[in-house]
């Protein structure tokens, strides 16, 4: 029973975070300044999601050059900047990651 209540509460919280600004009852219109800040949401949030996976290991800066995450992450950034095509970039990145994991 406790677990069911917990699941329901979690569902409400995640839905709330996704719906909050969709509500017309929220009386405010987004000012042009805020609108132009929001156009940078994608690069900023997505970067904040991948950077710690590559550069942070157990609460410290990842300085092990043979670490598969760091090595394959840097390779993926370089490949992405060169090819500019998502799918081949991901395939090469993941292949490099597994190669590094096997050799270290």
């Amino acid at each position, binding site marked *: 029973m406790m677990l069911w209540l917990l699941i329901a509460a979690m*569902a409400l919280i995640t839905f709330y975070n*996704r*719906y909050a600004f*969709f509500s017309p009852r929220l009386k405010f219109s987004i000012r042009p300044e805020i609108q132009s800040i*929001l156009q940078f949401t994608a690069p*900023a949030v997505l970067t904040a999601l991948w*950077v710690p996976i590559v*550069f942070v290991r157990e609460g410290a800066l990842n300085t092990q050059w043979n670490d598969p*995450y760091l090595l394959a992450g840097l390779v*993926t950034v370089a490949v992405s900047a060169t090819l500019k095509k998502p799918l081949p970039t991901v395939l090469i990145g993941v292949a490099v990651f597994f190669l590094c994991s096997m050799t270290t």
Partner: protein
Amino acid sequence: MQGAIDILPISIAIIPWGLLAGSLAIETGLSPLQAQCLSLLVFAGAAQLAALNLIQLASPVLAILSSTFVISSRHLLYSALYRPVALALPRHRRYLMAFLLTDEMFAVIENYRAKTGRFDYGYAIGAGFAFYLIWNLASLAGILLGLIIGDMTELGFDFAVAALFIAMVIPAINSRATLVAVLVSGLLMILTQLYTVPNGLVLAAIGGMFCAFLTDRYWPVDANKESSP
């Protein structure tokens, strides 16, 4: 549907996470139905995994719920970004779009918007629903594996997700302002992780967005024009 096709690569990348979420829920002591409902109703991978870890540590309910809020609070940014398009939709469509709104759906819609210059509701829902389906099927497979095999440990699944976000962010850097957004939010994210600042992700993202806005306003040089005079 185009949206469903475009979200397929990311959906495949998160299958291991779905397997993990399903098997971890069984290992934590949820019934198979509860485990599936977690993916069906909460539908937030990182928040689900964090909650399961906290339940295993016998954490208080308030701690679990606040972790859910903190981890999923980045969705508030997406919610604000899509407010203008959402307000133009009837209520049931707003609910549906909010329910399906994930990092992955957001990434795919923004990619589409960058290419076509417009928001398409059918495209967004197609992408969101395909992702919902695959996440839940992966969770179901994880639940079954959890019941049969037991413990499934992490095998570097997180890298596939990181590679995917890298592959979407780097080609999108088309101006000095976007470059600033990426560099500042990345740097702030590392700092908040090193000093365990709560809600670091949202702080880092807002910091990056704000610096990009300032760059755009006071130093607005197009990076492409600059490199090819």
